[in-house]
């Protein structure tokens, strides 16, 4: 692609954002709606600079990310292990999937009340919710990947003399890596959403708490700021996930063709 057309594309892709911001600013400058209730973009920037001290903000972001990473790591580890085991050992898989199939239709957020009854208002209940958000997409996709391996790949490996654990580790798991990667990406965005919801409903820190607290004190500009921040962080972390996953996927596909 030539340089100038790339530049034009970049410009066009920002045009949507800029138009929206302009409309937003114009509406609020015309003061059709009370600026306290409907802050302008400049109002939001002002609130961001004055009402939220940077070190407090970084603390909120840090604790939120810590929760997500913790819940996600546990969810991904368990999800991948159970997915692989249940996909590989058929009989055990049927037994393991009976309870999973039973709880899977319940959205993770519906666990919030029970998690609080079980584990109290502290960190464990939030981590449990985030764990559930990550676990189900990852276990489902891993299982799907394990069960849908191209049979000829397995047959080829078997006829070359691979059996048992080596067949699993060298052939079956690498073959289902793309599905595991998909599951991890979906799981990440789910657990991120779960984190926000859990923090809205019961927390004393974190990004969800920041915006819920701002609502109680009536700082709507801070809520808008927080919402945008949550979106940006979600986008950034998803980008990092995607980059690492796509690179892995590409590496895998490269290996399979060469």
């Amino acid at each position, binding site marked *: 692609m030539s340089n100038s057309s790339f530049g034009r594309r970049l410009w*066009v892709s920002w045009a949507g954002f800029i138009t929206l911001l302009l409309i937003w600013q114009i509406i609020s400058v015309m003061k059709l709606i009370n600026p306290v209730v409907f802050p302008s973009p400049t109002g939001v920037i002002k609130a961001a600079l004055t009402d939220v001290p940077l070190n407090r903000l970084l603390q909120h972001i840090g604790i939120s990310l810590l929760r997500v990473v913790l819940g996600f790591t546990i969810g991904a580890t368990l999800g991948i292990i159970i997915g692989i085991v249940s996909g590989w050992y058929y009989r055990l898989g049927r037994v393991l999937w*009976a309870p999973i199939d*039973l709880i899977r239709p319940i*959205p993770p957020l519906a666990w919030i009340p029970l998690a609080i009854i079980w584990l109290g208002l502290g960190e464990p209940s939030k981590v449990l919710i985030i764990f559930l958000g990550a676990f189900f997409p990852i276990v489902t996709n891993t299982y799907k990947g394990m069960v849908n391996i191209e049979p000829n790949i397995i047959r080829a490996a078997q006829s070359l003399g691979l059996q048992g654990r080596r067949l699993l580790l060298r052939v079956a798991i690498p073959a289902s890596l793309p599905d595991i990667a998909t599951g991890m990406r979906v799981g990440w965005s789910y657990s991120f959403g779960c984190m926000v919801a859990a923090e809205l409903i019961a927390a004393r820190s974190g990004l969800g708490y920041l915006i819920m607290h701002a609502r109680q004190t009536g700082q709507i500009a801070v809520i808008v700021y927080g*919402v945008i921040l*949550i979106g940006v962080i979600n986008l950034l972390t998803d980008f990092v996930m995607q980059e690492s996953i796509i690179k892995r996927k590409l590496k895998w596909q490269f290996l399979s063709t060469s």
Partner: protein
Amino acid sequence: MKRSVRHSKNGKIFGLSEYIIKIITIIILIILWEFFSRVGYLSPLRFPRPSKLAITLWELMTVGYPIGITVWLHIKATVCRILQGYLLAAAFAIPMGLIIGRSYLLEQAANPVITFARSVATISLLPLAIAWFGVDELSRILLIAYGCYWVILTNTIQGVKQVDINFINAGRMLGASRRQLFFRVILPATLPRIFAGMKIALGVGFMVIIAVEMIGTIQGLGALIQQARFYYSSDIAIDGMIFIGILGLLISIVLDRLEQIMLPWAVGLEEVER
């Protein structure tokens, strides 16, 4: 489901079918649960026995919780909210998606906005919705609509973009006017994707509503389990979750059926993620 080589045993274990194995497993688990809570290993406050759960289930259906609001009323409230938000979202997202998908420039301009709006967790808009519209039905419905809107929109845009160019060219060659081209070729070819989006959107709406109902209402399944939490009635919370699970399952079954009946040409379509 397709099975790998290792699993080509007709799906039978000890001569029993998959479903029977599953049902037996679940029954064994329930019996174990009942046994351990009777022996005293599981605290009755946190893990109420299955028999207790069954009694509570009956009370929820007849007496209701809080008293007078039976579980059927909760389900009705939840379903009404989902449907309103969902239809609102579809009514705006589908025409918008069709317009954006037809124009390369518009799509380029809309893309970053859509990407960003999708990654804003719908739940995080709850405080804003409350501040603007109050703790009210309107804010709940708008939040569901927001969650559903972007999913339907992206799928509609994808659908329009993926229409086989040969269909359009063939239509043009056969002399279709722009209008005919749109209604007779592009729209039907896009419908499967739109439907896929609507399916995912309903799941998203279902997730959103449960969380949204936990704040500021006593009607709806989310409110039911949240009320149960305040009084540490874990039996009601678990029963409420069972109803939520069944409702979610029913919704997805109904949508699958609808798709099979209405769009028989849309077999084997891969879904866009989320």
